[in-house]
């Protein structure tokens, strides 16, 4: 069954058409990448799915239910986790505290007036941290971590809501190249293992062509191509307007590296 379906999404900012009839579908366990040059409407599309922006037209369907225009917190409760382009975490909390907070929210306990918040859901939080390889850093303040590690914790926070869909806006932005590959491999592993659908935007073509099952190419708010990495890579239109020479090479390199 289709996990996520975007149907004819439209968004205008003043005179600018940031998204024009954007439609796509995503199945459980599938990784779908949205790529495109700066200003193509990737983040706009993304935020319409995540509830941060209300579309001017079209629908967002989650497992057959219409979630168009619902606020992020509602979308979250329906099984959607998300990470941000610039990692958003609770800076005054420890690493494990961040995940515990997400678990408290997931269990609907945020209005409890008694009890020690930082004694709750510790084991579960530790399991999640372990899955992203951050268990050893659990007790450190999150502000002390390297940015790549913060991104991993953010992934654990998103997973705390036991999501069926993960939205990741440029998951590897601002990370060192070696960290990027590791993070994307981690995400791909979790997605396949737990049948979580992943929608992500990305500028790093290595990451996209290595891990995406399908790719949407967005240019000036319009989808100009879609398909498997192979199909997109060979699309002359995509090569002309977006990938260019260097991008095509990266795509080939990624194919060699990951078979």
């Amino acid at each position, binding site marked *: 069954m289709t996990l996520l379906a975007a149907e004819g999404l439209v968004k205008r900012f003043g005179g600018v058409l940031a998204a024009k009839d954007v439609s796509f579908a995503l199945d459980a366990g599938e990784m779908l990448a949205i790529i495109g040059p700066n200003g193509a409407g990737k983040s706009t599309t993304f935020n319409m799915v*995540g509830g941060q922006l209300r579309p001017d037209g079209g629908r967002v369907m989650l497992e057959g239910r219409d979630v168009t225009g619902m*606020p*992020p*917190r509602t979308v*979250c*409760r329906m099984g959607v*986790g*998300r990470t*941000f382009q*610039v*990692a*958003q*975490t*609770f*800076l*005054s*909390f420890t690493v494990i*505290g961040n995940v515990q*907070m*997400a678990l*408290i*929210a*997931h269990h609907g*306990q*945020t*209005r*409890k*007036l*008694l*009890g*020690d*918040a*930082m004694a*709750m859901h510790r084991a579960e939080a530790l399991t999640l941290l372990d899955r992203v390889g951050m268990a050893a850093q659990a007790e450190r303040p999150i*502000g002390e971590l390297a940015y790549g590690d913060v991104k991993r914790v953010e992934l654990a*926070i*998103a997973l*705390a*809501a036991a999501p069926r869909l993960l939205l990741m806006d440029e998951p590897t932005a601002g990370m060192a190249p070696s960290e990027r590959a590791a993070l994307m491999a981690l995400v791909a592993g979790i997605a396949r293992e737990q049948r979580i659908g992943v929608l992500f935007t990305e500028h790093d073509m290595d990451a996209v062509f290595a891990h995406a099952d399908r790719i949407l190419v967005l240019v000036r708010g319009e989808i100009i191509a879609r398909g498997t990495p192979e199909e997109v890579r060979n699309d002359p239109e995509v090569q002309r307007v977006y990938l260019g020479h260097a991008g095509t090479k990266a795509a080939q390199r990624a194919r060699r590296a990951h078979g």
Partner: protein
Amino acid sequence: MELDFVLIQALSGLASASSLFVIASGLTIVFGVTRIVNFAHGSFYMLGAYAAVTIVPWLLEFDRSPTLFFAGVIASALVVGMLGVVMEVLLLRRIYKVPELFQLLATFGVVLIVQDLVLLAWGPVDIAGPRAPGLRHGVYILDQRFPAYELFLIFVGPAVLALLWLLMHRTRFGVLIRAATQDREMVGALGVNQAMLFTGTLFLGAALAGLGGALQIPRVSANAHMDLSVITEAFVVTVIGGMGSVPGAFLAALLIGLLQAFGVLVFPKITLVLAFLLMAVVLVVKPWGLLGKPDVASGRAVLPEGILDPRPLDRFGKVLAGVAVLALLALPLLDDYSVKVGTEVLIFALAAFSLNFLVGNGGIVSFGHAAYFGLGAYGAGMLVTKAGLSMEPALLAAPIAGGAAAALFGFFVVRLSGIYLAMLTMAFAQIAYAVVFQWVEVTGGDNGIVGVWPSRWAASREVYLYLTAALSIAAILFLTRVIRAPFGATLRAARDSAARADAIGIDVRTHRWLGFILAGAAAGLAGGLYAFSKGSIDPTLLSIPLSVDFLSMILLGGIQSVFGPLAGAAAFHAVKDQLMPLTDHWRLLLGLAIIAMVLAFPRGLAGLRRRAA
């Protein structure tokens, strides 16, 4: 209503709108560039009036000509502009990077200092200014007499708007002001001399306030209360217009001027309330004002200013707290005076703690927390004196009154953030103050209500101290638990990153609202206890100065720590109680102390202890 009457009313509305714009434009320009909400802007306005009543009569001695009158007005504005430069160089320059709350408090410190200095320089008696030569007559409009000077004032606002437009679009300085208003960091990155730009902006802003004040002298005599009365109105205008937007301020001043001119016919006593209601409505519909723009969010993640780690007290802290409680309980061994101070310290500790529950734990900077304290006091006091109930049910009603008011005001407040939120809390506190002050039949107005005495069993000072201790400490311990509990952690999480909180399924607005109500209820309980300790209530219990006292307490104690505000309340109140009878210049001392605190140790007493450890 007759047409001529409506016309005259509209004209006088335009005249006050025009004056209001001149003042508010300076405030909004300074905010746009420096991102500091300058409380002292009202002080500049007052200084402008005092400078003018000094300079203008002296000039008119030479020749009673309009030229010299206006030369005196302009000279006053320039003098005040120079004072703005002094303030920028001595104070603002040091606090551009500190959190908003500290900036607000520091500029409020300047307000206190200027109030005392004005009294020192010009004395407590109002000083009437000369009327403007050539504009002393009346003009007849549809058979109604209208003062020529008012007519002249109507044209001043648009003239200032035009001059500011020329300045902003035709000079390099003006272009830089506009650029800095849009993106301060970028202007700095382009290599612009920021120090000069900021100093120049303060000169312009202060001079506009001074001009506004100087132009008032034919209408109102210079007095020592001009600063706070005008600053609230100027805040309302800049917030409605959108902070940083000069045309927005013009539009808002027009709205407010006309609203007050006609509102006075319908609700003669609550024109200020009308203005605040307009502001509340505008902010709910357009959270950044009519022509304002959302702040450019800086991409950097910074550690929030507030409670970071709500761990329970360590052993030293526990010993300290135990000794403090024992000392309070032993106060009756000393004298009556100590018992009185001890009772008040306990009450203010609860009030300050509840404020830091919002500020430190929730990142909700309330500038009007005294409203809930005061309404709790009035709720309890009026139940006893008007409804004839006894103390026990009245003390139960106090937190309900505070919490209900917080529920009503908080519903709007939590829709905003940062400086707009602070302004709205202050506006609501002023509304509550105005209602209590002016509804004489019910609240006793300025005189308040006397005869709020405890039940017989609690009538002695000692017993009342113990009662206060039991209730305050219980409430504080409960709030401490809440801070550590999931609800408190959720408020901290939303403070750290509202976007992240939202994305993990937290309804940030509702949680903030509930937190606001809880803090309001605790402040209400403190207010109720205060009413019975004094035996009387009066409007100062809801006033801005008391709100600032509460903020000073938590600042002194340190908003990063859970228990710091308690130490802050004790230290602040004890010092105030000792010093105030000894000096005529309490405000001067308090102002200097606030500024010193902001500059020297923004982490408060608790921070000092941590640094020593």
